[in-house]
């Protein structure tokens, strides 16, 4: 099953374009994600954040541009192939296997990569521990609370031992305590597992506290890049969020 070993190197998106029936959802976006860093992808609704993830993971085809991991071009491969090359993601709307237990959900991701039953079970148990989900180990995922479901989804993505992990609004629907607990877990991930983490979220305080670097999209284009402070004071960003003339 693992004919492709994971490729080493940074994830690089070059001039990616995506069109939906002639409408440009992404218009030449470039992005670089290094193993071990946390990149925040922000922007107003409809700016192309989720589309960027969909394009990298192969769920929507690129109209132009390339996606590479190190020297290996991954754009054009099937979502399954890309997943096996070490790219994992979570979804804005949680997509769990609702009639399977929490443990089985996490296990499935490890099994799909070719792990044995024993190893997959051990990995899943360890992840449930990391995410404080042990008490839901044998509960069907459909019965979990919203916050728990989101954590299961992240644990499941990690069970595949990805080199790059994309989280689409991981804290949506969580209360403050849950968000803080998640933040602690996420902050430690890149160093612990040597993975590159890309996060989309509307919660600016979460993004600002978590990310090493931010990239701002608007109407399918990159309008700013840099540290939290650089982005916060950028005129284009203020304009994109608040509309032009906001400071008049």
């Amino acid at each position, binding site marked *: 099953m693992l004919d492709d070993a994971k490729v080493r190197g940074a994830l690089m998106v070059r001039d990616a374009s995506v069109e939906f029936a002639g409408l440009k959802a992404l218009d030449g976006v470039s992005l670089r994600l290094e193993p071990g860093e946390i990149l925040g992808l922000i922007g107003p609704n409809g700016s192309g954040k989720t589309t960027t993830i969909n394009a990298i993971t192969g769920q929507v085809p690129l109209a132009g541009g390339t996606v590479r991991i190190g020297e290996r071009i991954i754009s054009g491969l099937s979502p399954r192939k890309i997943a*096996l090359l070490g790219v994992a993601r979570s979804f804005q709307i949680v997509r769990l*296997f609702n009639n399977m237990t929490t443990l089985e959900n996490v296990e499935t991701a490890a099994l799909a990569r070719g792990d044995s039953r024993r190893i997959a079970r051990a990995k899943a148990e360890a992840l449930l521990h990391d995410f404080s989900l042990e008490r839901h180990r044998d509960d069907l995922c459909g019965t979990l609370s919203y916050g728990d479901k989101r954590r299961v989804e992240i644990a499941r993505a990690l069970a595949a031992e990805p080199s790059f992990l994309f989280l689409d609004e991981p804290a949506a629907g969580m209360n403050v305590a849950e968000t803080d607990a998640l933040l602690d877990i996420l902050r430690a991930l890149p160093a612990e597992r040597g993975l590159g983490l890309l996060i989309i979220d509307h919660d600016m305080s979460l993004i600002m506290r978590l990310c090493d670097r931010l990239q701002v999209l608007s109407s399918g284009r990159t309008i700013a890049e840099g540290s939290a402070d650089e982005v916060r004071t950028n005129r284009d960003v203020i304009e994109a969020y608040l509309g032009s003339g906001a400071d008049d």
Partner: protein
Amino acid sequence: MDFAIQFIINVLSLGGAYALMALGLVLVYGILKLVNFAYGELIMVAGYTLHLVGGSPLPWLVMAAVAVVMAMVAGLATDYVAFRPVRAKSVTAVLITSFAFSTLLQNAALLFISPRPRSVPLPEIFSQSVMIGGMPTPMRDIITIVAAVVLLGLFAFLMQKTVLGIAMRAAATNFTMARMLGVPANLIISSAFAISGLLAGVVGILWIGRIGTVAPAIGLEPLLIAFIACVIGGMRSLQGAVLGGFILAFIDTTLNYTLSQDLLKFRDAFTFSLVILILLWRPEGLMKGPASGQRT
């Protein structure tokens, strides 16, 4: 008391056969959200294989094994011929290709074997009886119950404890997500068809064991039974299919015992009326299964 034992054995043996039939159908449906209308022909293939190897000196169990293997091969062929080439394109296309494959197999049997029923070899034990609670009970009923228990047990083990089973359940809940995690879709689908063929093959032998002959249209009734059992139990749930099979058998057997000779001709009308009532009460079937029922 005697009557009760007799009744229970009847329900269990008929229900076991119905449950296995329904399971084979719903297994493929669960993953692809498509009904395999060529499912009945897998039973036909098992029957004709048994007929064709009937003249050989092989022991009966070997012949039966060959018949089951041929049903599995036919199941895999259904995937490759009727489903895989058009699967991604449209539901309607698959509906038609699976009907076409069913017709093709039936007509091949008409043309190359015979339109008339052909006998199949059956071991002595199928026509023997044992006394249970003072009533003569056909051995084939006992064999059916044992076979159903063994197969349902093996099936439950496969789905709960093996990598293939977990992957199949994941694929049945959310096919797209399973693929995204790296579950090999084609392998999972082919496995589902092969297991579906295995169940059809065993049921085929038990079913034909009741009649003693095989004819080209023999698959129609099992297909209908399986379909109705799935609808009663809930199309999205494996347990539902098994439950539906036993409920349908319970209804059929009860009617067999209670209807007068004149009314017995119309048994199916009574059965279907009850099925309609069940569906009015629970339109999605008795067991709901995973929340997302759309094709993914």
